[in-house]
């Protein structure tokens, strides 16, 4: 028995074997049953979801579905703006914030008739790799609830891996989709920067943030990617390029004869869990056995990616998060004597420790006298990193990399911020380059039986190429659907 994928549910709905109301009820029941152990959600939309499901069933009764996925439930990370439904970013500072508008991606889901069933938990403002930074408590890994699910899109990963919803959306600024996907044994994709509109995604680091699918298999990723992609006049950084039928195109490729770059800097073994390394190495061998040519390359600037990322991302966040001051919306401190006190106390009381740490780092990096040494230098490194990617992708069609150096870890194990930042060592350089990447379930650690992910990267707007390889790779790996987690709805 495996968890039903969204494309399977879509077929059942299209054949009239089930209804959206039935599906929605089933998933709401699963959520009710497992939520105490998983804590995937900040908000579950029971009544709203059922009302939307009824409307979907009426459309299908008239044979007027909005899309093949009309009536299929979905969860979105709680940093995506939902009109009339509170959007907290897992922060105390927004715990009462009910937006008056819909983000573009959420609107696209609704326009396809999909049922938004919940707002998934995350690290506060998507800053973290474990969901431990959520102001509303962490989510738990369905494979072992003593362990974290990764982050920041941890809730979006646990709800899919734990069978609470067929698929979800996360956001990825430095690995926030791919790392929790790997730690929870699901597929997670970060599209090319500009592929998916950021309008309505609460900004962490604007030049890095990108929304992407978190699904049980590659086919679902292809379907969901198509649904959320496309040019948006409300986002100046969105790309005005046509959106291919990814699920259709996905089946047309072959890994045979493709060159896959293996950057030596990703495979030094340093800081790498031995069990994870074995699974990743086996996955690379599997690529070769499918006829891909593994090309050893060097990307010399990868060693600067954490420093570079934590300057660029924090600088942007220090400005992006300035608006949370208690004046217009969100948390406001009581009894402040003047405006300065209102601002500073609201922020001091409303933000958690990691968010404050990053705001301070970013403020420092942009300050007069430090700008050239930090922010400006980070931008130069970013250019060099991108050139490394370009050079590797000139020699090869794709790049292969581990997703996370370690499997899911116990809560509290990474109390030192630097050790937490190292969780994203294999993921965050891709955001700095802006290209697309995916984490696929590659297997399980031999000792703990915990999921391990492997990444493939491709160049700008080469999602078709990435999905073609992933689709074939996934079948060969044979991991998807092979085991069920300990907690499953």
């Amino acid at each position, binding site marked *: 028995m495996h968890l039903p994928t969204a494309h399977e549910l879509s077929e059942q709905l299209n054949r009239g074997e089930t209804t959206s109301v039935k599906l929605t009820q089933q998933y709401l029941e699963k959520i009710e049953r497992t939520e105490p152990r998983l804590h995937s959600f900040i908000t579950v939309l029971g009544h709203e979801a059922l009302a939307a499901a009824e409307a979907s069933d009426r459309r299908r009764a008239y044979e007027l579905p909005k899309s093949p996925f009309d009536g299929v439930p979905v969860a979105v990370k709680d940093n995506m703006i939902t009109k009339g439904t509170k959007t907290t*970013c897992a922060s105390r500072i927004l715990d009462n914030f009910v937006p*008056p508008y819909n983000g573009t991606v959420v609107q696209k889901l609704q326009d396809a008739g999909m049922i938004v069933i919940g707002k998934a938990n995350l690290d506060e403002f998507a800053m973290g790799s474990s969901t431990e930074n959520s102001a509303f408590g962490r989510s738990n890994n369905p494979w072992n609830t003593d362990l974290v699910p990764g982050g920041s899109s941890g809730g979006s990963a646990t709800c899919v891996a734990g069978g609470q919803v067929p698929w979800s959306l996360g956001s990825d600024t430095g690995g926030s989709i791919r790392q929790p996907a790997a730690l929870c044994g699901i597929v997670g994709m970060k599209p090319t920067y500009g592929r998916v509109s950021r309008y309505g995604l609460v900004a962490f680091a604007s030049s890095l943030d990108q929304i992407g699918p978190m699904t049980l298999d590659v086919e679902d990723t292809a379907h969901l990617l198509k649904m959320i992609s496309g040019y948006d006049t409300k986002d*100046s950084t969105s790309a005005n390029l046509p959106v291919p039928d990814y699920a259709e195109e996905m089946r047309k490729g072959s890994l045979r004869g493709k060159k896959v770059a293996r950057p030596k800097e990703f495979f030094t073994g340093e800081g790498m869990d031995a069990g994870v390394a074995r699974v990743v190495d086996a996955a690379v061998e599997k690529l070769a056995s499918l006829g891909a040519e593994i090309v050893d390359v060097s990307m010399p600037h990868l060693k600067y990616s954490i420093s570079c990322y934590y300057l660029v991302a924090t600088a942007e966040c220090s*400005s992006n998060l*300035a*608006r949370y001051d208690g004046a217009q*919306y969100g948390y406001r401190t009581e009894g402040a004597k003047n*405006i300065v006190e209102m601002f500073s106390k609201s922020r001091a009381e409303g933000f958690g420790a990691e968010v404050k740490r990053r705001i301070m780092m970013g403020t420092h990096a942009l300050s007069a006298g430090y700008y050239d040494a930090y922010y400006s230098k980070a931008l130069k490194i970013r250019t060099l990193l991108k050139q490394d990617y370009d050079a590797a992708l000139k020699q090869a069609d794709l790049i292969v990399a581990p997703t996370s150096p370690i499997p899911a870890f116990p809560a509290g194990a990474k109390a030192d911020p630097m050790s937490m930042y190292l969780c994203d060592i294999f993921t965050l350089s891709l955001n700095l380059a802006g290209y697309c990447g995916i984490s696929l379930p590659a297997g399980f650690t031999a000792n703990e039986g915990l999921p391990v992910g492997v990444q493939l990267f491709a160049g700008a707007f080469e999602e078709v190429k990435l999905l073609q390889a992933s689709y074939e790779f996934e079948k060969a790996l044979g991991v998807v659907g092979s085991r069920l987690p300990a907690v499953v709805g």
Partner: protein
Amino acid sequence: MDFEIVIGFEVHTELKTKTKVWCACANEFGGPPNSHVCPVCLGMPGSLPVLNREAFTLALKTALALQCDVPRITTFDRKNYYYPDLPKNYQISQNDKFLGTGGYLEIDLGEAGHKKIRIHNIHLEEDAGKNIHPEDKNVTYSLVDLNRAGVPLLEIVTQPDIRSKEEAAAFMTQMRNFLQYLDVSDCKMQEGSLRFELNMSLRPKGSDAFGQKVEVKNLNSMSVVLKCIDAEFDRQSDMLRNGERVMSETRLWDEVKNETRAMRSKERANDYRYFPDPDLVDVDITPEIRAAAQATIPELPLARRRRFEEQYGLPAYDASVLTASFTTANYFEKAVESHPSPKGISNWIMTEGLAWLNKQPEDTTIDDFPVKSAAIAELVKLIDTGAITGKIAKQVFPIMLETGKSPAVIVEEKGLKPVDDSALGPIIDEVLADPRNEKTIADLRGGKAAAMGALMGAVMKRSGGKANPATVTPLIRKKLGLE
């Protein structure tokens, strides 16, 4: 010790666009508080700015008209500071790749000639909202109106090229006029669509070095700027004479006390932490975009002034006065269109129109003049055709101003039509028979031409000003047998 004034201006002008600079909200002055707002200009989480093409084109047009160097690529930066009228707590502005640098505004200083006021840079940014502090002392809150937040604002920063209050006055009126000619802004200082921030320092006369400058904000009219220059001159020169150091700081004009007061010290480093706004993309000013903006630049004041002299045969003085205001020049041309008597119309505008205007608040233009261009044209036409005399016209005008009625109607209603020539005979006879005029008549007969004026005056008086001088003169001569 004598001091010389050194002034540079930061000119902020709200661009006249249909919508705001990053969103589709209406760019309109007024309206109930927070009625022209959306998630973008409210700075809601998740919202993103998208550059308004119209705003960019108007800004580019201004940069080109001021002869600025316009780069191929221009970018936007974030200026980070906390203020309740700034919803994102950063202002999207330009700090690196400005829309324009260099350039100048050439100002006319009358007898002192012309002077180029150089421009340091010109850039496009967003306006902030307004904080409203209730007057009731018991109220412990303030309110914020964000209707103005996100209105496109063009900032023109000049070099410190201005050396006197007179030059400052000329710069301000002529910059306003220039922007009105370009049709990029309403330029209403009372509504805040044009604001001058003053950067002023003093130095000993004859010195080349710059003194420590002070920035003054909250100057909501040109006369206030001029008052402020006097006040700052006194304050700074007193300090310098007493051996004190002028502080680098931002000061606010206090309307009640007629003096500036310290707002914040610049020496406590106000660090705006500018960095490129990652939500906006580079703007590529292609040769096509540049040419299209260039093509929208209309005739500018100097060119229009020359044209007024040539096309309408106006004296240089008239042409310069009329073109010193975009609206006045338009008013003149409209009037001339309906009655082609340029000098006559110019006289009426320069005397009556501008006299009225001088008594109005600064933002008033000739468009607000109760006497419209068509009415002025009609009045001049009545004079030119002899339908009324110039003297009658002087009586008609105040009624036009007061009632807005057309001059023909007023003439009709008040019975101000010239005296019929047949009725003139008896009036002239009476005047000639008046013993008080005997000497004057003798003078006239004796060849003293000026005596005719006195007789004419007497006829006019007797006719209540309604006699047509052109008819009166030959009649008198005829009756006295001087033909």
